[in-house]
């Protein structure tokens, strides 16, 4: 990628980041995520000897749930809104490729999510520091894996938003993300439905991104060692999926008639 192409992608990304930061839904979701993290303090007090674990569980779950909601509901509007508002035409009239536009959109929302996840992680670690006198930095490994999963959700939302309307894209993305969380069910489908052909089960298992693998919440909360090799393989898995999904989105967007 030439430097001028990179500059154009970064310009779209910066603009997308500014746009997403202005979205009211983002603030609502971030507000609820912070509220949920803080509620961990109260809930922890109601329990017996589990306050630290509960604060960690609730904090990480809040990041996961609200991060996914942000990724889906802002992600689906990235392209379809531009098409519906017809603001895409003047943009594409400039020296900006459709692929560059998509990459910029992805990077912009990805950066917004990074900022959100970083803010929520800081909140969680500060909460732990204030209540337990120490911040467990091992949690950041789960946060990193979670962020990779969020990037996948954005890529899915982007792909569907190039193919259909915002509403349909939101429904399709949610379905795939939920299916990806049930990937173990897909893998063991033949136990429940022995008549299903094996090739179909395999195709479904490998054709739906496995969101379960990006969930390291349980091991980090219990202080299990999570090796750098695991994080490395997760990064490669995410990169492979991202290249496929964004590649498909680019193909679909390139051939789409925008009239």
């Amino acid at each position, binding site marked *: 990628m030439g430097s001028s192409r990179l500059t154009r992608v970064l310009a779209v990304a910066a603009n997308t980041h500014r746009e997403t930061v202005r979205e009211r839904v983002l603030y609502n979701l971030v507000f609820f995520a912070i509220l949920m993290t803080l509620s961990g303090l109260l*809930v922890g007090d*109601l*329990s*017996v*000897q*589990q306050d630290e*674990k*509960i604060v960690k*569980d*609730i904090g990480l*779950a809040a990041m*996961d*749930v609200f991060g996914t909601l942000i990724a889906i509901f802002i992600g689906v509007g990235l392209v379809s809104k531009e098409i519906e508002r017809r603001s895409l035409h003047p943009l594409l009239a400039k020296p900006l490729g459709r692929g560059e536009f998509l990459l910029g959109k992805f990077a912009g929302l990805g950066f917004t999510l990074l900022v959100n996840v970083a803010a929520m992680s800081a909140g969680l670690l500060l909460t732990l520091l204030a209540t337990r006198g120490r911040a467990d930095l091992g949690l950041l490994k789960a946060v990193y894996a979670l962020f990779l999963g969020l990037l996948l959700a954005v890529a899915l939302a982007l792909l569907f938003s190039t193919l259909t309307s915002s509403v349909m894209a939101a429904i399709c993305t949610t379905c795939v993300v939920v299916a990806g*969380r*049930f990937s*173990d*069910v897909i893998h063991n489908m033949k136990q429940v439905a022995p008549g299903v052909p094996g090739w179909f089960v395999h195709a479904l298992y490998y054709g739906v991104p496995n*969101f*379960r693998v990006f*969930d390291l*919440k*349980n091991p980090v*909360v*219990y202080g299990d060692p999570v090796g750098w090799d695991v994080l490395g393989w997760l990064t490669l898995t995410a990169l492979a999926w991202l290249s496929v999904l964004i590649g498909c989105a680019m193909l679909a967007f390139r051939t789409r008639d925008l009239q």
Partner: protein
Amino acid sequence: MTAGRYGFLLGLPLMVLCQRQVDARLGRWGAWQQALYFWSGEQVKRLTPGFENLMADLYWLRTVQYFGAERLFSTDKRFELLEPLIEITTTLDPRLEVAYRYGAIFLCEPWPVGKGDPEAGIKVLEKGARNLPRSWRLRQDLGYFRYLFLRDAAGGAQVLLEAAKLPGAPFWLETLAGTILARGGERQSSRLVWQRMYEQAEAGILRENARYNLQRLDALDAIDALNAAAKRFAEQQGRPPREARELMAFGLDPRLLKDPTGVPFEYDPARQGFWFSKSSGMWRSS
């Protein structure tokens, strides 16, 4: 505007009046009927992929609140949801050690302090020992509870010996196992076990429960002294004593007349001896 003001002024007292009427008909805790919508941890696990730990926390909170509410507010104290709640919690998060340890206490302690179902409590600890094979604490509790609640000295001692082999286990577990084995049914060995539990536990329910049981053992010693005096009284007077105060003439320490909660012991004709008053927090079904 005027209509709104009248509506507000009329509605405010009416609101309170209506609530009082509803409370009178349904009871103040009418809205707090306990129900479980899912009876299997596997079901909840299937429905919340990736959030099993969070759900386990929520179910554990509910277990603690349910137990506390039944123990403090309920009149019949049935504890019927306790076992499924603990089962769901420990299925969702099989590593939640605290759920096994406290859950077993909630189930094992005799009614009305707990559910009075030691078999169920032992099953919870056995599940914990299977899921956390390196936890000496769970095996230690399993050994203690087999001995204290099932009166199984041999089985309890065997589990304590297994616990002693695990990394981090205290050195005295083997000695304790030997004591239990040698002096199975004696109150002194029960006292030793509860004393160890009291010393090990952090401040909270486990420690309080151990303290309570130590006090109860002291009270049982006092009851023995009272009953010995009552026997002498019956031999002299030809009738059993009606109340503990009648035994003062036998040189009984006045402190022995009341249990540690300050409630006087009562003569129970069915037992033909003194026992805890039903109004005492020390009274149990067994």
